[in-house]
């Protein structure tokens, strides 16, 4: 589903965010991406939905190189991928409902379907009571859950979540993880960048550990641990 071949990412600032990374993630996998702050986790995820392009090497999604996509194909790629951004990226001039509905409107889904599905998903992330509030008037954890709702609303083939529990208390975080596992059971490939040791250790899923832009470890049933 997703292949990285010798990917190096150098930002215009001159920072090496990823160095020569090679990894493959199969359809239906559930992967944790771990590593210290600044290791390159977010960069890894950005390359998948083409927020950034690799400086060297190739990133393939669904067998196609994302850097070779024509401009009009980029939205089609992104519709395959639900993204929870580390900084949420909610639309400030839309309510919680409208933010989540927007991801369906982009796909030109029928309004009836939107009206049915959005409240259901808001219910799942525990925000049914906040539907008509603007993101600026939500707590940090509530904003994060809106971002999660928007990412999963279309049950995309790929779900990419960057630190989806950073602003959530352990219980809510666990509930959200259950939700993501549920979606994964439905066939969605899930990749989560996280610092949440508790969750990584408890779930024992595949872990890719990054450190200073390199892949240090890639284990099928990994835990969160300090790298050498």
């Amino acid at each position, binding site marked *: 589903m997703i292949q990285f071949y010798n990917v190096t990412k150098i930002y215009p600032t001159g920072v090496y965010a990823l160095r020569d990374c090679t990894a493959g993630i199969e359809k239906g996998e559930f992967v944790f991406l771990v590593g210290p702050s600044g290791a390159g986790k977010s960069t890894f995820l950005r390359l998948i*939905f083409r*927020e950034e392009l690799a400086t060297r090497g190739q990133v393939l999604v669904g067998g196609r190189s994302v850097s070779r996509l024509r*401009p*009009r194909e*980029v*939205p*089609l790629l*992104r*519709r395959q991928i639900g*993204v929870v*951004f580390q900084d949420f*990226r*909610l*639309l*400030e*001039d*839309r309510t919680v409902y409208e933010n989540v509905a*927007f*991801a369906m*409107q*982009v*796909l*030109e889904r*029928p*309004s009836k379907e939107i009206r049915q599905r959005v409240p259901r998903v808001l219910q799942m992330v525990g925000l049914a009571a906040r539907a008509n509030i603007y993101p600026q008037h939500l707590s940090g954890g509530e904003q994060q859950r809106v971002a999660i709702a*928007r990412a999963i609303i279309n049950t995309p083939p790929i779900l990419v979540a960057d630190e989806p529990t950073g602003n959530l208390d352990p219980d809510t975080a666990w509930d959200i993880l259950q939700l993501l596992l549920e979606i994964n059971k439905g066939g969605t490939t899930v990749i989560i960048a996280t610092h949440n040791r508790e969750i990584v250790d408890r779930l024992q899923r595949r872990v890719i550990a990054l450190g200073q832009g390199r892949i240090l470890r890639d284990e099928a049933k990994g835990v969160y641990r300090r790298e050498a």
Partner: protein
Amino acid sequence: MKLRTVGYYFRETFRSVRHHSWMTVAAIITVAISLFILGIFSLAVVNANQVATGLVSELEIAAFLRVDTPPEVVAQVGDAIRRVPGVQEAILVPKEEGLQQLAAQFGEQHDLLQALGGVNPLPDYYRVKAVAPDRVESIARSIERINYVESVNYGRDVVGRLLEVAAWVQWLGMAAVVMLAVAAVALVANTIRLAVMTRAREIAIMKYVGATNWFIRWPFFLQGLFLGLVGAGVAVVCLYWGYNWVIARMQLALPFLPLVTGQEIVLQLVGLLVLLGMVVGSLGSLISVRRFLQV
């Protein structure tokens, strides 16, 4: 593009106008002021041209006949003058009338004819009007060559000057209107670009969520159209009222000035301004959005 998406575009435009009310108001103000100034200036230029042309066209040629012209020839000379190309009309002023005019100049108490010993020394003459002011000179030269025409007088200086002034008024006016139109477009485009810039982050987010460029552009286009339309509407309403108010007053005060009162020209201008507002608003939005779609 599905029909429900068109519905979304309109709802989204409305939502956006309401939500970013500050930007909307700012853009409308800019459009309204810019187009209002452009409109006022255009009307001023049209009027200045009309007044200048009007003044010039009041100029006449005086064709004096020889004093010894036989009375039966006078009318023939008139016909000859009227056959000169470019002549609009030629009116005979008999010597008696000429003497009366002269006498009037000196004060009426005073009997000039008597003072002259009962002999009128003046010649008959024709007052000739040209169809266009720039024909005056050639017409005068043609009339000079007609038999029995003693001399031709047409205020060579005045005609020349007025023509030149009128040409400059027209030229400068045109230049100013073109310049103002460019300025209006620049001001509006500038404001719209600022307004769109504040939504750069939002546009990027939409792209990351999978929106196509046109899905993002359409609401901006419609919004620009709306801004342009409302702004131009405000401008033309003010313009129409203001102009009619001033013109009505000026016509009372200066009834002799040939001002532009025809509603057609005002309405034409109104149409042009509204069109300009809509085009600049919508295209300005589209072009401003372009830059932020590259993500």
